[in-house]
């Protein structure tokens, strides 16, 4: 077992060797940073014209970080689906997958190493966003001076790691979703398209059906996006803004329910992807 884990970690290391030399992950990180910093500095600008405790909490520590993580999550899902589909699909397109497996690399170990790398990269990107947000929040806070009179001090430092954990965990089912569809279709474009269509279609269908049928709330409480949104919203005294798609309609499942449902999605989609990857013939790809 330890030897297998060591093998997967070695493969993960070499996946990183390749991936860090591509533009795609760096462009995505840049997008995340730009959007997160826009949030901080737009909040700062708004605060200059119309001072409010809530707005002040958006660009000062510690409240800025959970809010930025909420925003990073909603954009990050989109980016993580693209990255996952690209990382897997290009191996089929460039036919490198045959070169890798022909040298004795185990199939499930190889796919697992890709998934591990994507999970680590998602976490790493969130940490970088947090660090940059912390620095810009300190600067913005210093420029803005003291909090407006009467503003509540509801933001807590303990919410920062919790928000990080939620945002990171909520990426995992989308990594599994994009992995499954990319392996199923053996194509970046198809894997990306199906996963993103699902992501957006679910939120639209949920919004419409919840307005039409009360019983649909039970169905919705087992859907991927709904539970990701529920997890991001849960217990958030400091998460003033919920950016997650699928939010805003009906009552959301509890955090525990969302965690369990998302875990099932991760295991089911990840397991199916690995099973399919092991079964498939690699012909002409």
């Amino acid at each position, binding site marked *: 077992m330890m030897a297998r884990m060591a093998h997967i970690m*070695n*493969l993960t*290391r*070499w996946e990183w*060797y*390749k991936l860090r*030399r*591509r533009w795609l992950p760096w462009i995505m990180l840049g997008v995340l940073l730009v959007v997160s910093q826009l949030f901080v500095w737009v909040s700062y600008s708004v605060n200059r014209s119309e001072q409010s405790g809530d707005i002040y909490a958006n660009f000062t520590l510690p409240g800025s970080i959970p809010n930025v993580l909420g925003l990073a999550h909603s954009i990050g899902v989109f980016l993580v689906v693209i990255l996952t589909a690209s990382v897997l699909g290009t191996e089929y397109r*460039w*036919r*490198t997958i*045959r*070169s*890798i*497996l*022909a*040298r*004795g*690399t*185990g199939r499930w170990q190889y796919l697992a190493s890709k998934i591990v790398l994507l999970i680590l990269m998602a976490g790493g990107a969130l940490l970088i966003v947090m660090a940059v947000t912390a620095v810009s929040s300190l600067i913005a806070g210093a420029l803005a001076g003291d909090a407006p009179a009467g503003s509540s001090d509801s933001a807590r430092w303990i919410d920062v790691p919790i928000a990080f954990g939620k945002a990171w965990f909520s990426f995992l089912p989308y990594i599994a979703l994009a992995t499954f569809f990319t392996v199923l279709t053996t194509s970046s474009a198809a894997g990306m398209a199906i996963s993103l269509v699902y992501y957006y279609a679910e939120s639209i269908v949920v919004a419409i059906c919840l307005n039409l049928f009360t019983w649909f709330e039970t169905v919705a409480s087992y859907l991927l996006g709904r539970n990701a949104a529920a997890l991001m919203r849960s217990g958030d005294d400091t998460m003033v803004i919920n950016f997650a798609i699928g939010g805003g309609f009906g009552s959301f499942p509890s955090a525990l329910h969302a965690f369990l449902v998302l875990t099932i999605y991760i295991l089911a989609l990840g397991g199916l992807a690995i099973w399919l990857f092991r*079964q498939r*013939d*690699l*012909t*002409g790809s």
Partner: protein
Amino acid sequence: MHELVVETHALTKRYASVLAVDSLSIQVPRGGVFGLLGPNGSGKTTTMSMLLGLVSPTSGTFRLLGRDTRSGRQEALHHIGAIVESPSFYPYLSGRMNLRYFQGIIGRGDSIDIERLLDLVGLSSRAHSKFSTYSQGMKQRLSIAYAMLGDPDLLFLDEPTNGLDPAGMAEVRELIRHLSTEGRTVLLSSHLLHEVEQVCDRVAILSRGRLIAQGAMRDILQQRGAVRFTTTDDTRAAAIISALPWVASVTAENGYLTAEAPPERSWELTKALADQGVSVKEMAPVQVSLERYFLEVTGDDSPSAPGEAS
């Protein structure tokens, strides 16, 4: 009995209604170059893909480097280098980085090995360039370097001269011969008859997924040898020789008669003619070419002529 590095037994692959490989049983002994010869679509690449674990056989079994592939395929593959179909590398990485990556996942060797291999295939001066900028010939050379990573015991080379110019083809053939002299076994798949004839010690001929013949190249060609001769009366000689049961055919061309018969039985030809009062003026054995042999055993399949790339 030679030690076998590849041994297949009734290996079969069916895609829906298409039988790509039909009950293939080949034995590849250790050392030398073994050719898998057949026209495009004869099942060569599918066979290699099955041996490398890229494609699951529909039925049949095989052993690699003496290991049962149901339990020891991964272990065996660690000692096998392979090129399957076209060169497949990461276009945004340089040749050197590509080799470094593959070496990393194989888990054997160091940067000195990479420089040695780049030098061996003549890519040292362009090792820093991105793979996407390489010519077809350079890509093919990088594939050979990739196959050599980890110093494998067995090399699977699927059409390794595809896309190379004549000089490049000759260099690669020389390289393949060289690799086999270092104690390795090379399993070479090709649809180029003259390539197989020049490089291989043993050959298996495939047609429409079926094994047509296999064995040492010399034995295979000798089975279909011929004798060319002239006599004092060629018309009578043709009739006399045609009547011999072990002569497949007699043809007259350019003033010579050619009898398809084992060259070692030429003395019997001479005797049969002499018994009928026909004297032989000139006689010489003719080595049948692999191309001719191939055409005979595969019927209407169309092999590639010398120099023709796929």
